[in-house]
């Protein structure tokens, strides 16, 4: 039972990192990016092929190095960011909103079919494998899994601290200002494309990082493991937790992952209909997205915005110091501003 929970929580932790990355792109910059799952997958692929060594006869893939795990993850993140810089440059330059989503939607499917059919890259449909554990020689099987869970938790915590810090920094506020009103932000001298582009690359980098963690967790990876539609689970997690609020996003990914894994365990899945369980799970995800969007789009822990447009986070310190009470969030403040709220 303990091992079972460790496995689920490890997965939730890894996807928490991914959700934080996606939330930067969608929650902060307002770009609904459907290709982020490809960055995650690229991170997994790169990490695996850089650690398992040369490909043997029927299996083929590029590189095939034997690097230390952590170095491989770092290189994977760099590769993912470089790749995202191409897609981002295309999709963010002039396209916004629905058009941005369409472009990334096309991109992720194009990448998916390319990886699936072009075997020299990542062994196509069969995928890459070669189970390895970064610390395997020194630890027993169970101890390794506890260690790896702790390692993932540590990574999530560090990423969370970084993202939280960035969220309340001038950069985070600027990105949100750009999201809320591009024209006003550019009037005030902000480079709209550059703000969105940097956020995009940062988010993609986090996706690559979570891919690197997932590689060590799963050990084998093929196109069936990263159907582009899987990204909806993450968007559901972000919606449940609270879009734009790092704390909410982490909470949401734990709720959705643990909740859904636990819930689908009790759905009867007869041997004759193995697709029933996953299908019901997807239906629930779809319902969750629609209902959250309709009835509580800001999630359990909403993003808090000060009247001056700054993003204010409830912090533990404020519980004790009783600093000045902040006004309630009013996201439409900017839009209704008589000076800059002219654009509908």
């Amino acid at each position, binding site marked *: 039972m303990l091992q079972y929970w460790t496995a689920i929580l490890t997965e939730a932790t890894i996807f928490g990192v991914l959700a934080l990355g996606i939330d930067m792109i969608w929650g902060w910059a307002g770009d609904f990016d459907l290709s982020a799952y490809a960055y995650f997958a690229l991170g997994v692929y790169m990490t695996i092929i850089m650690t398992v060594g040369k490909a043997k006869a029927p299996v083929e893939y590029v590189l095939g190095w034997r690097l230390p795990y952590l170095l491989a993850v770092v290189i994977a993140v760099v590769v993912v960011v470089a790749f995202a810089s191409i897609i981002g440059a295309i999709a963010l330059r002039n396209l916004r909103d629905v058009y941005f989503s369409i472009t990334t939607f096309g*991109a992720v499917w194009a990448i998916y079919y390319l990886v699936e059919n072009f075997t020299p890259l990542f062994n196509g449909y069969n995928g890459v494998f070669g189970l390895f554990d970064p610390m395997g020689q020194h630890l027993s099987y169970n101890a390794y899994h506890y260690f790896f869970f702790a390692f993932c938790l540590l990574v999530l915590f560090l990423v969370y601290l970084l993202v939280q810090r960035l969220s309340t920094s001038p950069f985070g506020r600027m990105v949100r200002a750009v999201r809320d009103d591009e024209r006003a932000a550019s009037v005030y001298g902000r480079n709209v494309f550059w703000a969105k582009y940097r956020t995009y690359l940062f988010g993609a980098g986090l996706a690559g990082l979570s891919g690197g963690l997932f590689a060590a967790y799963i050990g084998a990876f093929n196109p069936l493991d990263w159907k582009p539609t899987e990204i909806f689970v993450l968007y559901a997690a972000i919606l449940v937790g609270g879009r734009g609020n790092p704390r909410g996003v982490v909470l949401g990914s734990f709720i959705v992952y643990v909740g859904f894994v636990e819930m689908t365990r009790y759905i009867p899945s007869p041997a004759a209909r193995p697709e029933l369980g996953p299908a019901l799970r997807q239906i629930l995800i779809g319902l969750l997205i629609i209902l959250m969007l309709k009835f509580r789009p800001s999630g359990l822990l909403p993003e808090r915005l000060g009247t001056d447009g700054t993003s204010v986070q409830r912090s533990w310190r404020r519980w004790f110091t009783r600093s000045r009470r902040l006004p309630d969030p009013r996201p439409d403040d900017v839009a209704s501003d008589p000076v800059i709220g002219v654009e509908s």
Partner: protein
Amino acid sequence: MEPMLRSVSGDMSIFWISLGMGLAVAAILALSAVAFTLEYAVSNVVNLAHGEVLTIGAYAAYVSDTNFHQNLYVCAMIATIFGALAGTALNFGLIERFRNQKPLSTLIATLGASLILQNLLLIGFGGASVSYGFAQGSLLHVGPFLWTTLTIRVMLSAVVVAGLMYILLQRTRLGKALRAVSQNRELAQVSGIPARSVVMQTWAVAGAISGFAGFLYGETIGTITPTVGNGFLLLSITAAVGGGLGRPYATLGGAVVLGLVMSIAGTYTSSAYQLVFAFGFLVVMLLIKPNGMFVRGRALTVRA
């Protein structure tokens, strides 16, 4: 199908044959893309559940084919009716509920709907592919092209539907109202046009066209799975954006161009990369002419 065609004819005519196949694909694509663009025109929504309406049409025809009749026309009619029902239900149950929200929220909601519908179909019909009992027909040489009776029938019916759509848009009250609503819903409403009802009827028409296109697609490729509409959705989006999103005639042109580009590119590489080419086409169009190639006027920055 392609290897067979290659063996039938020499290397010289491969270009013409693939062009002919491209026209057949383009015909179905045109119907699907026009439905997609009509939905965008009246509701200002990028309907990512569009592919599932096609799939519903295809499966409705399949059920009718296996359980009741082996009649082509009955199947086509059933597919159309169920497509119309699905379109109406989607509009009434989802799009209208999200009308006051941003286009992006509606897009995300349609993604959720797509997930739900696709998996309901998976539960209902299983993941294995099914096929109709209709024959592919015999090979026919028409000029430089090589078609089957089936592809000719598909193209003819697409032309007929496009013609009907032209009449609907230009010659009927509904078409006039539809064009008005797509320009400005509020203004149309205050001018006495029942906007809600017009939008609903448009979704029914778009759904009917999609259902019919789904049937044609299932007939042409021979197999249907619950995810059959998924790949076709991306092609429809590409055709619509490439031609001009929200403009039915421009979308028709975009679909024809995309169908030809894909089939010719697929001839010289592999048809597995069709969607990759489609994406390349989409990116090129978005970069050089984001409003669509058949829309006059200078290229504007596309912001919703």
